[in-house]
């Protein structure tokens, strides 16, 4: 436990030692600000029945998720393998699973920190729309739960990609490809919609876009929650296997 906490702290700190952390946050804040402006324009134009969180997320969420996940996770293992510190790390009294979990946790915490400005935007809206029920605390909570769950899946996939290689660029590309594939799978399900075969059914289960819309509406569907948790665990398990593969290579 102590090793896990120590490692998580160090990993989290390393986002801020280098400029990468600041650049990612700056990029995300820019996109959030942009969609905030667009949102205000729309709200000023006409009345709407759609929850504000859903409108907000439909604008920039995907861009931020798809691009930030590879950048956040690419250095987790690849850099350590490249610089050789992986050897000093793995010869300390820590378990493979402990290392993977610590790195994953640090990435996820950083990812959630990156989303904090969204909270600021929503509070501003809430302040100026007093008396309306545009931003209910429940909806807000479920939105952030959705962001957290989708993020954990993407961070786990990124960990896996980073563990595969010594090159951060390659890790980022694998992670981006994985993320994009997951994201597009839902669209594929929509395209094949007319014939209700089991493939279509399966694809629609990983329609991340639709599921995120549910979260943003304030609907917490346990099927979605279970999907994200199990797929996160699946990718973390794969990462552990890759990290342990030095034993039988």
């Amino acid at each position, binding site marked *: 436990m*102590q*090793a896990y906490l*120590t*490692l998580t702290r*160090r990993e989290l700190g*390393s986002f801020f*030692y*280098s400029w990468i952390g600041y650049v990612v946050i700056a990029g995300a804040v820019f996109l959030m600000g942009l969609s905030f402006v667009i949102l205000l324009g729309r709200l000023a134009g006409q009345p709407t029945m759609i929850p504000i969180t859903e409108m907000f997320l439909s604008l920039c969420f995907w861009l931020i998720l798809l691009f930030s996940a590879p950048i956040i996770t690419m250095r987790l293992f690849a850099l350590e393998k490249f*610089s*050789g*510190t*992986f*050897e*000093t*790390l*793995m*010869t*300390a*009294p*820590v*378990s493979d699973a402990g290392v993977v979990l610590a790195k994953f946790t640090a990435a996820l915490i950083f990812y959630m920190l990156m989303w904090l400005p969204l909270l600021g935007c929503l509070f501003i809206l809430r302040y100026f729309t007093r008396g309306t029920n545009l931003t209910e605390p429940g909806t807000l909570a479920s939105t952030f739960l959705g962001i957290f769950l989708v993020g954990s899946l993407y961070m786990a996939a990124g960990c896996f990609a980073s563990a595969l290689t010594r090159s951060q660029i390659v890790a980022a590309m694998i992670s981006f490809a994985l993320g994009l594939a997951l994201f597009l799978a839902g669209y594929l399900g929509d395209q094949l919609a007319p014939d209700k075969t089991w493939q279509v059914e399966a694809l629609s289960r990983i329609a991340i876009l639709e599921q995120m819309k549910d979260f943003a509406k304030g609907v917490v569907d346990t099927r979605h929650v279970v999907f994200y948790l199990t797929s996160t665990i699946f990718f973390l398990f794969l990462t552990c296997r890759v990290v342990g593969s*030095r*034993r039988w*290579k």
Partner: protein
Amino acid sequence: MMIEVSNLNKRYAGKTAVSDLSFEVEQGEVVGLIGHNGAGKSTTMRILSCFMPATSGTARVAGLDVFTQADQVRRRIGYMPENNPLHPDMRVREYLKFRARLKGLSHSRSRERVDAVIAQCGLADVSKRIIGQLSKGYRQRVGLADALVHEPELIILDEPTIGLDPNQIRSVRQLIKELGRRHTVLLSSHNLPEVEMTCNRVLIMREGRILAADTPENLHKALGRSGHVVAEIAAPLEELKNCWEQMAEVADYNIAPTEGEYYRCSLTAAPGQDLRPRIFALVVERGWQLRELSRVRLTLEDVYIRLTRPESEEEVI
């Protein structure tokens, strides 16, 4: 017994790195592992430090199996890998604190130990600097401090002085010598004089096997049987040649003129013979001038080259 390795094998895809390796290291010994690149030194150290398991055979550290009891073994080992990888973005004290905590030391204990290793390794002046900006010598000391921070019983150092300048090598060597008083040390090196100076025992490796394992002195004795002697004598050249031809103990000789009337004679003695008293007696008898008489000792380097030369393999065993 601190390290017991028996019949250790390690194969990477299609290549044997270590084959049927067996050796033992007693508690408190400083043992040097020398050999060519690719002789299996780093692989042996990686197996001992539980980074990867062997293909077959067993290795035990302090009586614990490195594969099945890896966690306990890791707590007893301080390992510094080749090229001494560090986190260049961290500060020295911060890095050592991080490593101490990672190795399971409590907050107060880690603070104590970090202070102790910073003093021990001479890092006090740079403890607040960023590791990436330090000179190579200081970085090497940070690596050593990391290996020491949890007070391990066994310290494994993979090429601790590679790439350092002579002054830095001297200070790191001094540090290792001091470590040898309280810990068991296993180090690998290309630098033979260093091994000779710091280690009680030397293991010479080639192609994943141990060719010789002994103290530097014994290795000298075993291989230094043909002693070389250099004598500078002022005498007529013909007479000198005749003397060496007739002396039964001289196996081979070579004469070269030097400044003045002196000739420099390099003599190879027959096995087990010391030529020096004979030469002295000869010079006195003939009334010549002698201004140098010395035995050329084989350095460990010569021993090493002899051992790792393929044709001399049978001589060793």
